[in-house]
């Protein structure tokens, strides 16, 4: 059955492994995936634990629908306590790992304790073995997967692993599977490295039953047809997420030189479009059960020292690594490939690098601080691979970069009080290379996201579409302006999207096939049907919305408990309030956030959530969501 995936509790200190079923009560409260993971974190993480110590946990959670026939039912959530931010670690990964985990009979793997020697887990059909990984330690993420498959004699084994960045405790090291899939942000790879857990290998031959097979087949076909009729699915299928770059660059919604400018400063912008990527492209690939196939396959030219084949590019990395002086695909793809091999989060790393490059530009740090490295923008081509390697090995200046935003700011503040202004973050997590300061809804979402500056938590793309206001009112249950530069009703919009994407992450399907991109893509009505036909569970849209609310609030509680995050941490970087951008089309040029309007929007946001003026859930809210019973230790 789709619901019979077990929770495995693996103690790496003692080697003990316990397997538990998920009671229906927990299903109805937390559903699965990210929801049950939040529950497990709150219950199993020792309050105040050292993120690099044995009391931290790292959890791999497939969604309740992962591995089923639901469109793109491929995703796995990773989480624990972040060594990067000191608060919630949370990251979502595509590919084939999650489905295989479900086929092996598990939905969640919770790792606690610390192993003395490097190990990897071998998970197969209900069994878990802890195996020696000393021969894998020091290998990159491609080799690790290849060696394990050869060792265990099966090319179809799916593996989640860390590269040397995780081994060396780079705070934003990621977990990797396949050529490019990553649980990128918040340092889950670092937690694994601190536990000396190199990899998790999975293979399963237990199927997933559908509660109503015939209805599941008919309905999923209908859903796929609905998805493939949309313009965005077609655009993604051809260009991948990079199709967004043209839109944002044209508007002036991309940041370069750490947000000082929004006009591409390093050459001809044509050299950065997906059209000029063509010479490297060898094909298009997809995640498990996905018909949108939004990833390219590429081959680097004239490369001998690293594998030439990779998958991507993604818009996020294009804007991240492309934001500090690399002015062509050759440079970007080469560094992207390095990041994937080392196991480094490109978004977090890039945000830090462009921050220190601005410090260097302004003379706040110099070659003495950087260990002789020239961090001028014009030197990006030379310096990027060097910094990438140093960060992965946590040596030289890279050892400071690899401390994450909080660590780096602490380390460099002795050179100037302004360091915190130029190293931009929310709750310790770096931001995308996108301009958010002109768009109140995007800014609010980024600032209040429960894992730090992030767009996947709540980005309301619908805000850009100029939909009729009656339509928005019906969708959001209240007034929301259809002008993306307005603050009116945006608190309501952001909250709705936060909770909705939380539900998506509980199901384990891909956000790209939901209302994340388009009002014509699946939403609550569709998910209720997926859940009914596939798992047999009946939910109303309102009940799913409540689950989103419960999980999101619990994540907020985790952040408060572990890092003391409250209202003071719910603001975009100061630059968003102080500086308008010099270029851009009319809606963008010269605009920045208005502090008074932002505060008002934040107050409305708290009120809608049932939180007090400091951003903490009120006793009534805790009672209504049954969170006053946590930690309940039911699992």
């Amino acid at each position, binding site marked *: 059955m789709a619901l019979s995936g077990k929770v495995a509790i693996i103690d790496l200190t003692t080697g003990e492994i316990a397997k538990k079923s998920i009671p229906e009560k927990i299903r109805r409260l937390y559903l699965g995936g990210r929801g049950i993971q939040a529950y497990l974190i709150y219950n199993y993480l020792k309050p105040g634990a050292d993120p690099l110590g044995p009391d931290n946990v790292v959890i791999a959670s497939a969604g309740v629908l992962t591995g089923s026939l639901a469109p793109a039912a491929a995703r796995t959530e990773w989480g624990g306590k972040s060594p990067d931010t000191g608060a919630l670690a949370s990251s979502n990964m595509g590919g084939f790992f999650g489905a295989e985990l479900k086929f092996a009979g598990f939905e969640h793997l919770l790792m606690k304790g610390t192993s003395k020697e490097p190990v990897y887990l071998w998970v197969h059909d209900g069994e878990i073995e802890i195996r020696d990984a000393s021969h894998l330690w020091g290998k990159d993420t491609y080799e690790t997967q290849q060696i394990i498959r050869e060792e265990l004699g099966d090319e179809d084994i799916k593996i989640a692993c860390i590269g040397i960045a995780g081994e060396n405790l780079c705070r934003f090291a990621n977990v990797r599977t396949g050529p490019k899939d990553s649980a990128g942000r918040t340092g889950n790879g670092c937690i694994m490295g601190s536990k000396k857990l190199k990899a998790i290998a999975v293979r399963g031959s237990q199927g997933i039953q559908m509660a109503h097979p015939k209805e599941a087949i008919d309905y999923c076909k209908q859903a796929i047809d609905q998805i493939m009729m949309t313009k965005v699915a077609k655009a993604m299928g*051809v260009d991948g997420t990079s199709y967004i770059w043209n839109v944002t660059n044209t508007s002036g919604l991309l940041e370069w030189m750490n947000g000082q400018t929004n006009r591409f400063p390093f050459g001809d912008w044509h050299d950065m479009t997906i059209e000029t990527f063509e010479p490297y492209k060898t094909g298009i690939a997809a995640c498990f059960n996905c018909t949108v196939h939004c990833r390219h396959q590429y081959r680097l030219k004239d490369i001998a020292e690293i594998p030439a084949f990779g998958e991507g590019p993604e818009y996020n990395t294009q804007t991240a690594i492309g934001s500090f002086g690399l002015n062509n695909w050759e440079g970007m793809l080469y560094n992207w490939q390095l990041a994937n091999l080392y196991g480094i989060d490109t978004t977090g790393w890039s945000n830090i690098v462009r921050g220190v490059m601005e410090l260097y530009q302004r003379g706040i740090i110099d070659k003495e601080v950087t260990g002789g490295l020239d961090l001028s923008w014009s030197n990006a081509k030379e310096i990027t691979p060097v910094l990438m390697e140093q960060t992965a090995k946590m040596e030289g200046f890279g050892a400071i970069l690899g401390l994450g935003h909080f660590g780096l700011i602490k380390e460099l503040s002795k050179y100037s009080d302004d360091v915190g202004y130029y190293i931009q973050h929310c709750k310790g997590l770096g931001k995308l290379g996108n301009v958010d300061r002109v768009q109140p809804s995007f800014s609010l979402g980024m600032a209040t996201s429960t894992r730090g500056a992030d767009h996947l938590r709540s980005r309301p793309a619908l805000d850009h579409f100029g939909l009729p206001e009656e339509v928005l009112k019906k969708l959001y249950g209240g007034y929301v302006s259809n002008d993306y530069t307005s603050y009116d009703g945006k608190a309501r919009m952001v909250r709705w999207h936060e909770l909705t994407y939380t539900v998506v992450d509980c199901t384990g399907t891909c956000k790209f096939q939901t209302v994340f991109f388009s009002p014509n893509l699946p939403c609550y009505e569709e998910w209720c049907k997926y859940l009914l036909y596939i798992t047999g569970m009946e939910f109303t*849209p309102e009940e799913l919305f409540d689950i989103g609310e419960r999980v999101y609030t619990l994540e907020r509680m985790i952040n408060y408990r572990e890092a003391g995050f409250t209202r003071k941490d719910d603001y975009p970087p100061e630059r968003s309030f102080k500086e308008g951008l010099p270029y851009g089309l009319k809606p963008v040029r010269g605009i920045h956030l208005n502090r008074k309007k932002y505060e008002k929007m934040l107050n409305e946001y708290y009120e809608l959530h049932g939180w007090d003026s400091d951003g903490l859930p009120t006793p009534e809210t805790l009672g209504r969501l049954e969170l006053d019973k946590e930690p309940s230790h039911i699992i």
Partner: protein
Amino acid sequence: MGTYALPARKQPGDRTLRCLNCFKRLEIPPAAKIFTCPKCGVEYEIGRRAGQAKILGTVHYFDD
């Protein structure tokens, strides 16, 4: 709380784009490589992918 599952409807057409400056809906002629927004005058470079028109960029890239 309302939900909004639209029945799969016919898309407005692969030649319709939105002006990124004034948000007016634009109908792009089939072979056009350049298109000027009739409302605000911004000139766009037009590309095509899989039969769909797309905005590649502006002809004058913030050069005013």
